[in-house]
């Protein structure tokens, strides 16, 4: 079959610098999916944007050809096509889906308008003529009420729904080729599974070709026939998905494989955790927010961020809270740190040492709060924005000591140097500014800063979700090492079961403010009970083409609580209790 698009010897560079993409070759045939895989900075995004010629202004295509054989049949080189003809191609023959559905739609225009626009531009259709096609397309991508979606604004839709709108926008003109740039990276796993399933279905229906840009080998295994592995602007390995994923030949591909976190196939459940020396206890913690409507006459709505949370963390262990966005996991962490107060009746108790009197975190005065802050620290999600770009590493690191008035100048500096060494950085780096560090190094800095006060509890809020897989692996390793060496306890917040699988001693799965299942990870993966936990596990894409995502299982658990099987079903906030089904394993179900 003649390829629809063949990219030959593509090189792209910025200004007079070394090229960032060098000699890249790939081709797509009609109906086929090709995956460009790599970590950030590998040039995968730039390469696929070059096809549509929507590169940043400073970038130029230095050499190569991009031969396009669209519906017209005649081969055209996209590199030299006049801009006006290129414009006719964009959105009509080649469409694109972007990574961030939250920001890729204009906030001020209705969804119907933005999607229909593709048809007005290319089909010359009027708004009313295009409307019917748009509504059909909305129905096809799974909007329950297309008419309503047509009139909605992006901020009225959830992330998954916005990505569906983006897909509708890309599909409405029935393109020959769809370029999807990390289409599901910003989405929750269960949503990701559903969106991937939808893309695949649409492809089978229309017979379009697809270029999928991703960093996730699991996504590749589920979607692609062809794989191109990229690293630092060059192709490392390419071939059919079965070959590349089944027997990776290039060492870089192998390294990617080893770094990808996976849910282990567990042969045995774990014994329950010891409960004698609890560092942190949350008893009956609930949190409700009142959202006041913008208008004076509308009724305020009540949001239950957390409901009846009972969690305890054993000293020296890691308790992970896993859940999707909006599940209440971050609220729980903020309450544990005393940054937010639980509703009356809830208690948070913290014991700095095994024998000390517990501190009531929910009712601290100023002095206890200051003391508590020395014992409990936090590592944030985004290492790019959690370090001030105007402070030297040294200043950022000694700041906690200055605030608590500990030590003198030289002892503070010594402590900073020591902590840098502990996290695997060099003390010489103390005088640098954060911009001189990579993402992984910055996260090491954040960890070092959290350790400066010698805390006993660290709350990690998605510490690896902004990082590449290979770096994620290193940071998790580091967190584990430090925990065991310093006898730290972690409260670990994550949306990713696979990440949690390796570091946690106990996992609490949260859904809409409630813990639905709680167990040590081995037990949880060996014997998941709750449909939502099962959905989370099933939705995790695995880098093997023999184990595709089971969409049915995902759909069953990820829906609303009243669609769950009878044993787990409930509606509103009248949930069944958390029941112990075996030692150390609790499930929210009717007995």
């Amino acid at each position, binding site marked *: 079959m003649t390829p629809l698009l063949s990219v030959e010897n593509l090189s792209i560079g910025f200004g007079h610098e070394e090229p960032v993409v060098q000699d890249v070759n790939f081709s797509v045939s009609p109906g086929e999916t090709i995956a460009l895989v790599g970590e950030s900075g590998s040039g995968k995004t730039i390469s696929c944007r070059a096809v549509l010629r929507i590169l940043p202004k400073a970038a130029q295509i230095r050499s190569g050809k991009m031969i396009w054989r669209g519906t017209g049949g005649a081969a055209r080189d996209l590199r030299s096509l006049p801009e006006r003809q290129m414009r006719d191609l964009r959105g009509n023959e080649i469409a694109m889906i972007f990574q961030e559905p939250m920001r*890729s739609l204009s906030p001020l225009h209705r969804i119907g308008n933005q999607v229909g626009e593709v048809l007005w531009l*290319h089909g010359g259709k009027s708004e009313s003529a295009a409307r019917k096609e748009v509504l059909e397309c909305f129905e096809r991508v799974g909007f329950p009420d297309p008419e309503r979606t047509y009139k909605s604004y992006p901020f009225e839709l959830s992330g998954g729904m916005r990505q569906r709108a983006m897909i509708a926008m890309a599909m409405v003109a029935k393109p020959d080729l769809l370029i999807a740039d990390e289409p599901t990276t910003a989405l929750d796993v269960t949503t990701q599974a559903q969106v991937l399933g939808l893309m695949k279905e649409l492809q089978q229906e229309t017979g379009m070709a697809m270029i999928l840009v991703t960093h996730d080998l699991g996504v590749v295994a589920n979607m692609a026939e062809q794989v191109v592995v990229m690293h630092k602007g060059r192709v490392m390995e390419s071939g059919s998905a079965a070959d590349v994923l089944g027997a990776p030949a290039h060492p870089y591909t192998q390294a990617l494989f080893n770094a990808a976190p996976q849910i282990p196939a567990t042969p045995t459940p774990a014994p329950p955790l010891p409960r004698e020396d609890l560092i942190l206890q949350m008893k009956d913690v609930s949190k409700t927010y009142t959202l006041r409507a913008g208008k004076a006459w509308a009724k305020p709505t009540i949001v239950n961020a957390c409901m009846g949370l009972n969690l305890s963390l054993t000293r020296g262990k890691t308790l992970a809270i896993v859940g999707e966005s909006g599940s209440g996991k971050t609220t729980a962490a903020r309450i544990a740190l005393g940054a937010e107060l639980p509703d009356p009746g809830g208690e948070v108790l913290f014991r700095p040492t095994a024998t000390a009197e517990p501190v009531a975190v929910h009712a601290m005065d100023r002095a206890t709060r200051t003391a508590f802050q020395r014992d409990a620290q936090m590592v944030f999600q985004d290492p790019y924005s959690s370090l001030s770009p105007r402070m030297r590493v040294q200043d950022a690191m000694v700041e906690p000591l200055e605030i608590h008035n500990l030590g003198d100048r030289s002892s503070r500096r010594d402590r900073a140097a020591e902590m840098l060494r502990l996290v695997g950085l060099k003390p010489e780096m103390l005088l640098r500014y954060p911009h001189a560090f990579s993402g992984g190094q910055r996260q090491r800095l954040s960890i070092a800063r959290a350790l400066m006060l010698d805390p006993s509890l660290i709350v990690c809020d998605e510490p690896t979700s902004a990082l590449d897989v290979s770096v994620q692996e290193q940071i998790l390793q580091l967190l584990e090492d430090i925990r065991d060496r310093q006898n730290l306890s972690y409260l670990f917040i994550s949306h990713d079961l696979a990440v949690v699988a390796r570091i946690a001693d106990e996992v609490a799965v949260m859904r809409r403010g409630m813990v639905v299942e709680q167990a040590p990870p081995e037990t949880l993966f060996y014997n998941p009970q709750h449909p939502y936990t099962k959905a989370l596990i099933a939705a995790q894409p695995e880098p093997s083409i023999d184990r595709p995502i089971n969409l049915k299982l995902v759909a069953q658990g990820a829906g609303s609580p009243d669609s769950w099987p009878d044993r787990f079903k409930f509606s509103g906030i009248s949930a069944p209790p958390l029941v112990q089904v075996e030692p150390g394993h609790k499930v929210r179900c009717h007995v």
Partner: protein
Amino acid sequence: MEILRYAIYRFGTMLLTLLVVSVLIFVIINLPPGDYLSNQIAELRASGQSSGVEKAEFLRKEYALDKPLWQQYMIWMGFMPGPHGFSGMIQGNFGWSFEFDRPVAEIVGESLWLTVLVNVAAVLFVYLVALPLGVLAAARARTWVDYTSAFVGYLGLATPNFLLALILFYYGHKYFDLPIGGLMDPAMEGEPMSWEKVKSILIHLIVPTFVIGTSGASAMMQRLRANMLDELGKPYVETAVAKGMSPSRMLTKYPLRVAFNPFVADIGNLLPAMISGSVLVSVVLGLQTIGPTLLTALKTQDMFLSGFVLMFVALLTLIGTMISDVLLVMLDPRIRYEERQR
């Protein structure tokens, strides 16, 4: 429907605000010790002219200046009957100017709507000039178009208004036969409105509009350019390009809509800034606007006159903010549907 309801609600709050402002204005005017008449009485006594004193005493009674302050306020506003029954601001009686010895309405009369005219013309000028230039400068960022417009803009910002006024008068008169000073042909002052008069006003308006508007326009142009540049980097712009839109259509439909919000929100601030800023220009250019009158009134403690002028400026400001609030709600769905956290 939603918007209409909001507009009505907003109008209500505007009236409330105006009431509060009126109290503030009244208190501030009365802060300096004495009033126009008591000052005059003291002066007359000192020079021994008792006949004048009687007249002044009579006026004090006539305008209820001998009553307690809160009653004076109520009478001034027309909430309470004065010596001549209900006759205050809300009944359309703006009071008496002691300095000019004429009713306030008569003094302010024509200059009131001339002020509005000059300033609305200047605001329109600001938007008409700043909008296309700002967008162009952003779309062609870091090219000669951008640099030229920035240069001209900074010139506009840096040149003092009165200097610009003098230069424009000189060359405008020399080359285009534009009139110097005033807002209409002196012969037409006080005449009823006619086509000739409108024409004369429009020709006289050219230079003042330019002078008052230039600095505002260049400042707004620079801000619009910066806002547009921010928006141009956003992913939704890329989405629009990937759809196959032409650059000009894309620019006006997406980033401009978003970048425009702050400028709509600005209308409320622009009006009062222009009015107070144009006082000096009005003096230099000899414009019959309200600015110079306000200056005299404040200096001589002519309380009813200054009170009225201040109320008028406050009203303009409030109307400006109301318009911009309602426009914002129409333009930005996010504000329309906004929910605030308590």
